[in-house]
């Protein structure tokens, strides 16, 4: 069954070790993404969203202080069966990532065109300048950039935040990845620009059939975007199911608290729901099983 899934995470645990001892950050995460599906992982700050994405990407594994167990399977290939070099070869080609703040995530000392070129070379090492340029112009048109030539010739600091965000989306999709990881995309931008670029991104991934793991602390943003939701709390998935089902009938106390917080955090605010109640530790609510 995991053969057909774009991404399958099974019982993933993670702990960080330092001189004080070790802290467990993920306590057995299960998560599936089907081809073309948009899945959101939602939770408060520090709940373990970014580390999950970085494990899928394979970058956290390179950290000596991180101990990781469990299974990560991308398109039927188990991470444990692959060498780090093989996993790395998926990065930028089959899996790509979008970051929170486009203005600082793009390299400040290189022109956009050069950064695109580097990304393109990941899937086509010998790509010619001409062809690279044509591909860039085409994808920039897809993200509604009117004058691609000027943008390609620019440095990131010469472009607006929204423009950089479009560039980053284009960069993440130019190699036609199977899986896009979007870690709080555009949270650093203002709300309207964030909404615009998310809309663009949604259209693009829908058209291309790209699977997405969308990470956010904001249920309001997720509602527009995701087919299915995973709610993560302190390194555990506490509720999962179709977006609609969860919004209509949130059952876990933590999900309810998140939902109640929506009006306060349509901006880039972080939910302040840290009053820990015993109720939050109730078992997983699985809407899929209920529906089935």
């Amino acid at each position: 069954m995991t053969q057909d899934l774009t991404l399958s995470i099974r019982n993933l645990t993670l702990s960080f070790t330092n001189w004080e001892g070790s802290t467990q950050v993920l306590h057995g995460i299960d998560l599936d993404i089907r081809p073309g599906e948009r899945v959101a992982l939602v939770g408060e700050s520090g709940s373990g969203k970014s580390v999950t994405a970085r494990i899928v990407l394979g970058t956290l594994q390179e950290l000596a202080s991180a101990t990781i167990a469990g299974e990560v399977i991308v398109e039927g290939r188990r991470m444990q069966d692959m060498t780090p070099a093989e996993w790395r070869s998926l990065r930028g080609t089959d899996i790509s990532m979008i970051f929170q703040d486009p203005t600082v995530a793009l390299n400040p000392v290189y022109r956009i065109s050069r950064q695109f070129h580097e990304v393109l070379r990941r899937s086509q090492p010998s790509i010619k300048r001409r062809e690279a340029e044509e591909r860039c112009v085409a994808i920039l048109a897809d993200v509604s950039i009117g004058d691609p030539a000027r943008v390609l010739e620019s440095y990131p600091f010469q472009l607006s935040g929204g423009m950089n965000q479009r560039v980053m989306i284009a960069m993440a999709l130019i190699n036609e990845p199977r899986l896009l990881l979007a870690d709080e995309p555009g949270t650093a931008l203002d709300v309207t620009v964030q909404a615009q670029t998310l809309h663009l991104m949604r259209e693009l991934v829908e058209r291309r059939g790209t699977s997405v793991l969308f990470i956010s602390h904001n249920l309001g943003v997720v509602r527009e975007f995701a087919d299915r939701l995973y709610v993560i709390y302190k390194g555990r998935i506490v509720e999962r199911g179709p977006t609609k089902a969860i919004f209509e009938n949130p059952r876990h106390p933590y999900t309810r608290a998140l939902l109640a917080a929506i009006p306060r955090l349509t901006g880039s605010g972080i939910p302040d729901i840290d009053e820990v109640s015993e109720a939050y530790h109730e078992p997983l609510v699985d809407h899929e099983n209920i529906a089935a």
Partner: protein
Amino acid sequence: MIVSRVARRLGSTMLVLLGVSLLIFLIARVIPGDPARIALGPRATEEQVIQMREVLHLDQPVIIQYGHFLTELMQGDLGISLYTNRPVMTDIAQFLPATLELVLLAGFFMVALGLPLGVLAARYRGGWPDNLIRVITLLTVSAPAFVWAVVLLLMLSYFLPLFPIAGRIHETISIPTVTGFMVIDTLLAGHWRGFVSALHHLFLPAFALSLSGVGQAARLTRSNMIETYDSPYIEMAQSYGFPERRIARSYALKPSLIPSLTIIGLDFAALLGNAFLVENIFAWPGISRYGVGVILQKDLNAIVGTVMIISATFLIANIIVDVLVTLINPRIRYAERSR
């Protein structure tokens, strides 16, 4: 736009030099003692002294003296050194290349040793290379250049005679002076053994001179690299699977170099100052040593000329660093263009 930037910098450099000339000119006049009398020696008659004062314009008001000085400076004439009895320009032409040779090699050491040590330390942060480099750089920055000159001289020339004790070239070799740079002149003369000997003589003083700069460049580069490594665009580069070496070289290094280069440029100025003691220790016939000699002799023209030349060298070094930083940093380049 690089050209216009250099042109503008050259313009402001001229202004700075003018200010320096006025300042040093005035300082040189207020040092007690009569330069004409010193120049002529104790046995000169009163008439000779008065005549000398006229030759030197010392009988005229200070402002007129400065006017004379400026017009002569424009013609490339810094006057006669009372001490060596030669044109100051000739003295400078003789002594400056020796110092430049020293300082340029020291600057090269700062870049060629300091930057790679910093990169290495950052790359193995917390590991033994990092700790070793930390100890070494702490040592080098904690003692001034002349201490290193003495230590190196004792260790590597005296106890272990690996390097010559003094001079610019082996005394049996004589090379016609063309540029004044011994390393270049030996090559021009096609004298291979002389070239090796010149480098051999140059190495230790330049190394001693560069040490604290090497340490500073290494420490700064290390902390810049580490900071850069934590930045989101490095994480992005890693998440796209760019090869690690490529990330280190073209993503992390370039932005980290900007502050390091700036500091190296400033250190270069300190090198000219520190060169004085190092030149004395290694009996290096350079301009710093000459400068101190003429100050003690109260040789006015030579003092002013030496200071002017050293300031000009420093300012030119700064322009070069400025251009390098501009070339690396697009943000400056473009701020420039839109102005």
